[in-house]
């Protein structure tokens, strides 16, 4: 007998056509699945009645285990027990610090390979195992097949990581309705859309990622004004601080995978106990050494003070981006299990000088919000919410001189399409390489290369005559597609920025910071590059002119121009902007009369043999 849920007025579905949809929080440490049941979002529970599924996958020769069962193998078979796989998804081996993973990692053609007793696995496959488990949990709870899922990702996830997450969903047999940013989902869970307006901060400190977002609400509409964070800061790092402390004090052999695992588990227990106790005593034997320690909250706070400061700094940066001060914030939402730590609550509370919104279970809010969003997208909801996300970093293309031309600025609201016109640099140029880059710096080398493609069959024209329209489009999932079109011939080329798995995502934080720190240097580099482009162009033009019309010049004029030309070529490879500028100016001035003579000659050529009334002006 099929069981019914209460629908919104007029939204009852036909029999056998239930729009069962779920929201998934695919977390670094734990994952959750939720659904809106009879109008209320609820976490769907597993057979063992728990709501959190540890994001851990264990591979033995013939079986795959997920969740608690898998986690039980962490201490006895660490190499085959994969946890925190979210830190690996969409990355290459060069992006990760292998010391932090008690796993056997290698490069697998751009993807990370993890050696297990069950063969090579990549992070997408591992994530898919977690998603499959969540899907089963959901189907058991909801009594049938699912129509789709909304899955959340950290705001800082780049295109490769978003695409890899989508791939994992597909592999798990889930139909993705939309990827949304975790903080945005949290805001939905808190029902902020029911307020008329306000500005809110979402402070999300999870197991492995930290995101802080500034949201603006008006008339039930969400807009993410700015996001900041650190894709590599989370509860795991707080554990690590304790691990380091114990390791230094007791000289444990951290290189041994089993020992590393045991200390990690102990560290997490200490941290979690300190969330509701003032102090905790431990007595444990690891690697033949007795660990006897009494931890107080103050002691712990001292160990992790740098980490707390990092979160506060990112929060201030986000406020700066949104051009808001702390007293303009109407509420601060605490998300992620790690915000249970009293030292975090205290630090954030002090920064904003207000009570925090923390009455929902911080582990659950993201999944609940995703479920609400899924319900709306499936058309089951009471009302429509429009969610707006932003680009975390600027997107642009490479132009002559390796200068970045920004097309979509950072923190632009999604979805977005923006176009800009470019032209050819050389006479008769028939192809153009479109090099897509991401970042805030001015030179291509300092940004991240996302993709490269070539627009061919540009009709040969003089330099600057071709019109090439480059369009950047970022969809609501944050995925980018770039197209280039020569507008007179409609010749087109395009690319979707997809799995070049493992763009150096690790660097996002550093990139942002360096773009601020090195702004002055960038300005100089850009100016130099621009000067060089101009100089090169002049050199080329002059040489061409000399080849064609050198007979217009007297010997002394010719020598003088040639000398200046040589001077310019000589200084071109120096990094002296002023010298190059000066030499360019010199050659320009010197060749002006020559240019005038050439102009006269070409006019004469055009006029020769034509009667005055046939000329069109």
């Amino acid at each position, binding site marked *: *007998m*099929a*069981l*019914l*849920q*209460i*629908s*919104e*007025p*007029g*939204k*009852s579905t*036909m*029999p*056998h056509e239930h729009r069962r949809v779920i929201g998934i929080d695919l977390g670094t440490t734990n994952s959750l699945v939720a659904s809106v*049941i*009879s*109008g*209320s979002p609820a976490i*769907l*529970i597993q*057979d063992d009645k728990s709501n959190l599924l540890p994001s851990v996958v264990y591979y033995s020769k013939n079986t795959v285990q997920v969740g608690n069962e898998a986690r039980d193998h962490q201490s006895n078979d660490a190499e085959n027990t994969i946890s925190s796989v979210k830190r690996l998804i969409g990355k290459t081996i060069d992006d990760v610090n292998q010391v932090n993973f008690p796993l056997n990692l290698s490069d697998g053609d751009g993807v990370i390979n993890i050696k297990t007793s069950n063969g090579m696995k990549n992070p997408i496959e591992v994530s898919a195992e977690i998603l499959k488990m969540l899907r089963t*949990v959901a189907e*058991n*709870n*909801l*009594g049938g097949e699912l129509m789709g899922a909304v899955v959340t990702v950290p705001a800082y996830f780049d295109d490769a990581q978003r695409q890899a997450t989508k791939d994992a969903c597909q592999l798990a047999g889930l139909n993705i309705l939309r990827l949304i940013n975790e903080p945005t989902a949290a805001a939905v869970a808190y029902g902020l859309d029911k307020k008329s307006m306000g500005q809110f901060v979402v402070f999300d400190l999870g197991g492995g990622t930290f995101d802080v977002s500034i949201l603006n609400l008006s008339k039930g509409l969400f807009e993410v004004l700015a996001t900041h964070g650190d894709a590599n800061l989370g509860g795991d790092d707080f554990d690590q601080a304790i691990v380091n402390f114990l390791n230094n004090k007791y000289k444990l052999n951290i290189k041994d995978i089993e020992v590393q695992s045991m200390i990690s588990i102990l560290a997490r227990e200490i941290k979690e106990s300190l969330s509701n106790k003032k102090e905790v005593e431990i007595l444990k034997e690891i690697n033949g050494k007795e660990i006897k320690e009494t931890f107080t909250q103050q002691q712990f706070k001292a160990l992790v003070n740098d980490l707390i400061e990092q979160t506060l700094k990112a929060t201030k940066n986000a406020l700066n981006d949104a051009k808001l001060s702390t007293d303009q914030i109407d509420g601060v939402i605490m998300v992620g299990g790690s915000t249970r730590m009293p030292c975090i609550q205290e630090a954030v509370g002090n920064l904003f000088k207000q009570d925090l919104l923390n009455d929902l279970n911080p582990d659950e809010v993201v999944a609940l919000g995703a479920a609400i969003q899924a319900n709306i997208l499936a058309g089951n909801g*009471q009302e429509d919410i429009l969610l707006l996300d932003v680009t975390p970093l600027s997107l642009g293309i490479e132009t002559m001189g390796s200068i970045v031309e920004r097309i979509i600025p950072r923190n632009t609201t999604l979805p977005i399409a923006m176009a800009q016109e470019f032209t050819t640099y050389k006479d008769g140029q028939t192809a153009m390489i479109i090099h897509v880059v991401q970042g805030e710096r001015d030179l291509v080398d300092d940004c991240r290369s996302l993709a490269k493609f070539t627009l061919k069959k540009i009709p040969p024209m003089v330099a600057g005559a071709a019109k090439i329209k480059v369009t950047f489009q970022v969809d609501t999932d944050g995925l980018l597609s770039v197209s280039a079109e020569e507008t007179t011939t409609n010749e087109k080329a395009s690319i979707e920025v997809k799995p070049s798995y493992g763009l150096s995502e690790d660097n996002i934080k550093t990139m942002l910071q360096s773009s601020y720190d090195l702004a002055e240097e960038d300005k100089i580099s850009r100016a130099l590059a621009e000067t060089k482009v101009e100089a090169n162009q002049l050199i080329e033009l002059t040489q061409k002119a000399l080849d064609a019309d050198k007979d217009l010049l007297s010997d002394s004029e010719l020598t003088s121009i040639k000398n200046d030309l040589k001077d310019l070529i000589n200084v071109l490879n120096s990094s002296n902007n002023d010298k190059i500028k000066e030499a360019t100016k010199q050659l320009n001035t010197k060749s002006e009369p020559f240019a005038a003579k050439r102009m006269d000659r070409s006019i004469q050529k055009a006029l020769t043999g034509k009667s005055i009334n046939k000329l069109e002006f």
Partner: protein
Amino acid sequence: MPISMTEKAASRAKNYLESRGKGMGLKLAVKTTGCSGMAYVLEFVDEASPDDQIFESHGIKILVDPKSLIYIDGTELDFVREGLNEGFQFNNPNVKDSCGCGESFTV
């Protein structure tokens, strides 16, 4: 015969109405569709229509339109759990036959 709810169904309905934040009660109805003729409708009600018959059971208002009432007269709404799945179930004395899954029925 009145339309009623079990105590369990009423307490669930009350919770759902409260967390939804609005709604005067539940609407029970049938629509003609499905693999075996008719299907049940279970919805929140924000506004009653003039023709609706209103029943009350354990403090929850149940609204039924006259046309549907013919098919579900005497129905008791229950809330049941099957494994991890839980939801509402129509115990309808008028049903002669239903499709395998029970989502649609004939009278």
